[in-house]
């Protein structure tokens, strides 16, 4: 992935969406690139449903989290959940959208799990429009809209072979019917499978950070549809796209996009063209299949829902919600990077929600990059809450001051997490003291003399050999010093002695 494309964060991307910021080569035949837009449905973390007081909880015995309103019983009326709107506004603000006066629209279609046979959604006047999301890699993805709607229930197809179109019957459970959703529609700015995954991961971490959604893909809290098309590299055109449904894991998002884009290229290269349609991703078969039959015209007959009134958020209300927004993942990453952390490490540390620990330790004088490296490599997420940030800072200072080798520091850290003791006591109890460089050099010379063949391979072998032999010598030294040697210094010594 192209990571050196940095765009001014304050600048919204050009909505006409011409060129990608990161073409992902090697996935399509020469001369083609992918154009991907994602529609992410996020279930909001409310107590009750969008329009009905029925509980919004995952699972539960079938048809127990229901109320006359979400069952669509005749005569019932929807009333909007204020908290759902606030969470939706939070999402809009976090995605740099304009928050608008909006109305509810009915999307009319017959399906058994849609209790009213229409979905209350938003159409031509959505809540949030024209935002953007900056990915950790620096790419900026345009957000067309983030609108509110209600979820459908679940239809379980009980067939002879489990396939949808086979004989048998279906069972409908309305526990999920009416759960509040925000549908976040990106512009077709996504360059390929890696960027798509990065987008979903970043979006997910934002939704979780602002408390809008639990973001659990495995429970369907976050569901992704991908709009995929292809075009010649360098072109600005937007060709016929297909909407791929049912891509509900990070892995399947990438696979589905690549499969579909390859299908399009094959069609074009054989003189045909894809038709605009909805397709479903079949994870097992690793392919997409056409959705509804094509002769079934999709005419949703959208119109303003007469049972509901517009939402017109006042500037004061929006400001209040904005003021209560927690720091977003990007801001948190930037805070670490500003203090000297590497970009990738900062992303991982924030992703694990351990940036608070890191900032405290860095604030106490510990080296930022060592702090991030330890958190990234040596701190299991579960143990981190037992760690005292001041002790952690002390450990890093001991290491950078030469009192502990990297390997020793790692062992001390593990014990700190386990016992809660301070690093100095643990190091003393273990008898750790760093070897000085002179002592180490003697050892290295001795080992080189004892293993001339290996040393020859280290000096003149190919890259693979050199790496293997470096591992051999380091291992021998660690063995001889019972792990007290500093691996970094050993490598420096080996390198210096080989003349490279």
């Amino acid at each position, binding site marked *: 992935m192209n990571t050196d494309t940095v765009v001014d964060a304050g600048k919204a991307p050009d909505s006409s969406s011409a060129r990608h910021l990161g073409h992902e080569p090697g996935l399509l035949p020469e001369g083609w690139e992918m154009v991907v837009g994602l529609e992410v449905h996020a279930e909001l973390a409310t107590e009750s449903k969008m329009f009905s007081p029925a509980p919004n909880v995952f699972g539960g015995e079938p048809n127990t989290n229901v109320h006359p309103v979400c069952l669509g019983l005749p*005569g019932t009326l929807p009333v909007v959940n204020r908290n759902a709107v606030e969470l939706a506004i939070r999402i809009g603000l976090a995605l740099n959208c304009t928050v608008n006066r909006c109305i509810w629209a009915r999307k009319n279609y017959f399906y058994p799990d849609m209790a009213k046979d229409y979905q209350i959604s938003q159409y031509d006047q959505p809540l949030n429009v024209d935002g953007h999301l900056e990915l950790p890699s620096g790419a900026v993805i345009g957000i067309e809209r983030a609108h509110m709607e209600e979820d459908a229930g679940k239809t379980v197809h009980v067939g002879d072979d489990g396939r949808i179109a086979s004989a048998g019957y279906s069972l409908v459970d309305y526990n999920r019917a009416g759960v509040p959703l925000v549908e976040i529609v990106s512009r077709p700015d996504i360059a390929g499978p890696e960027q798509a995954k990065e987008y979903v991961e970043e979006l997910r971490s934002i939704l979780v950070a602002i408390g809008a959604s639990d973001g659990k893909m495995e429970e369907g809290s976050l569901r992704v549809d991908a709009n995929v098309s292809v075009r010649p590299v360098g072109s600005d055109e937007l060709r016929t796209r297909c909407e791929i449904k049912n891509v509900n894991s990070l892995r399947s998002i990438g696979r589905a996009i690549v499969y579909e884009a390859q299908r399009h290229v094959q069609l074009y290269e054989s003189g045909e063209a894809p038709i605009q349609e909805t397709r479903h991703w079949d994870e097992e078969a690793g392919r997409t299949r056409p959705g509804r039959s094509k002769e079934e015209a999709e005419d949703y007959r959208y*119109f303003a829902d007469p049972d509901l009134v517009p939402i017109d958020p006042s500037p004061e209300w929006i400001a209040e919600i904005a003021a209560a927004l927690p720091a977003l993942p990007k801001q948190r990453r930037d805070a670490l990077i500003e203090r000297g952390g590497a970009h990738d490490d900062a992303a991982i540390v924030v992703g694990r929600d351990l940036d608070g620990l890191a900032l405290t330790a860095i604030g106490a004088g510990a080296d930022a990059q060592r702090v991030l490296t330890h958190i990234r490599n040596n701190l299991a997420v579960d143990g981190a809450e037992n760690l005292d940030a001041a002790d952690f800072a002390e450990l890093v200072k001991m290491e950078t001051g030469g009192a502990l080798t990297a390997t020793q520091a790692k062992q001390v850290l593990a014990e700190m997490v386990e016992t809660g003791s301070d690093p100095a006591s643990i190091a003393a109890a273990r008898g750790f003291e760093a070897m000085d460089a002179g002592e180490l050099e003697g050892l290295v010379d001795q080992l080189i003399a004892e293993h001339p063949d290996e040393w020859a391979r280290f000096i003149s072998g190919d890259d693979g050999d050199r790496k293997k032999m470096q591992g051999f010598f380091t291992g021998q030294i660690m063995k001889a010093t019972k792990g007290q040697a500093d691996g970094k210094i050993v490598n420096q010594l080996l390198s210096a002695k080989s003349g490279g």
Partner: protein
Amino acid sequence: MTTARPVPTDSVLDIAAAVRAGERSAVDVLEQHLARIAERDDEIHAFNTVTDEAARQQAAAVDASVAAGETVGPLAGVPVALKDNLSTRGVTTTCSSRILENWVPPYDATVVERLAAAGAVFVGKTNLDEFAMGSSTENSAFGPTRNPLDTGRVPGGSSGGSAAAVTAGFAAASLGSDTGGSIRQPAALCGLVGMKPTYGGVSRYGLVAFASSLDQIGPFTRTVAESAAVYDVIAGPDPRDSTSIPKQHVPVSATLGDGIDGLRVGVVTELSGRGNDAFEPGVVEAAFAAAEALSDAGAKVEDVSIPTAVAGLSAYYMIAPAEASSNLARYDGVRYGLRKPGPNTAAMMAASRTAGFGDEVKRRIMLGTYALSAGYYDAFYGKAQRIRTLMIREFDRVYENFDVLLSPTSPCVAFEFGAKADPVTMYYNDVCTIPSNLTGQPAISVPFGTGAHGLPVGVQLMAPMLGEPVMYRVAAALEGLAP
């Protein structure tokens, strides 16, 4: 054959006063009404369901409260009939449709809760044009209701059963729903007072929707004072209806007798029927006689032109079917109601809907589906919603100079069964009532004299949003001036 007036019975106010005072038992009052039902409803068919057993329990409970010295509500012991499109927990709610023939709701409509809390006793669920679509009650899947004043004629519709029930003395009052005139027109044809409140004035929660932006629930009674009493009970904000106006209800009963001296009454040229062949002369004469009577009694009466009023019918027949096509999608054989078998879900749904809906409902669903579909939205539904805005602006402007407006309620008196078989001819019945549904403004029909065949004529009074207090004042005065 013809009785020009509803069966004279005790009024809502007399019954409630006597029951509260312990002078009459609610059970006795109920039995009187049940006896009339038993005697005559086979012929009239006002009811789809008579809830006599539940009513006896409710009446007994009211009597017990009175005996125990507890406070009872303003409608204590008053027998009330409910249009069968109002949801009643544990009692079938059919909308006079095969598709809901056996549906028993698990919840009560807000108006039902409010009436019950006020001490009303529910005698039954009344017949209607299927899903309230019609002006004669001939579109009921369970057979038509007869007008108690002339059983060869329709009671009007769609709330024909609720009107007939009060006119026949089966109930002291009833509730109907009014989407394009479905309370006012049957009230006119049955010699009753029928009122459509300001949109949002009465909760729609539990009213099975026909056209959500037009539907309102309102009362049928024999007199204006009774109408006010029932309206005061059912009106007021409801958190379960997002379109309910969040303002404390101002009781209209208290100001009924305040008189009309100096009030400004406008006779709407486009709706007056004068010079219009589609209106019966007797109806037009009655309306102008009413205007003159009000003038004689001290009101300032003038003609006023509202050009968009004539567009009401056209706009209505785009908007109401469009909303209905969506509101009635849920009758699909999955969760409740009629199911006919089919090899897959869509086929089952289509078979159920085809067997469950009558022709008028199918017509309106198709019309509405068409009006909303891609390529036609702007030309039909979209345009109609804009005309509606134009109409609201015109009426608002007129109300700067008038307190109430006046017109006939219906172009004709009660007509014979089958007389208006052509849909568009039938639709024309609503020409005077529809504008108030489109603007959301309140309107009331008050009996005023008789027209052809000695049948009653209704005069409609219209008022601005939340203008019920002044509208009721004029209605009370008009009632007193009626021949």
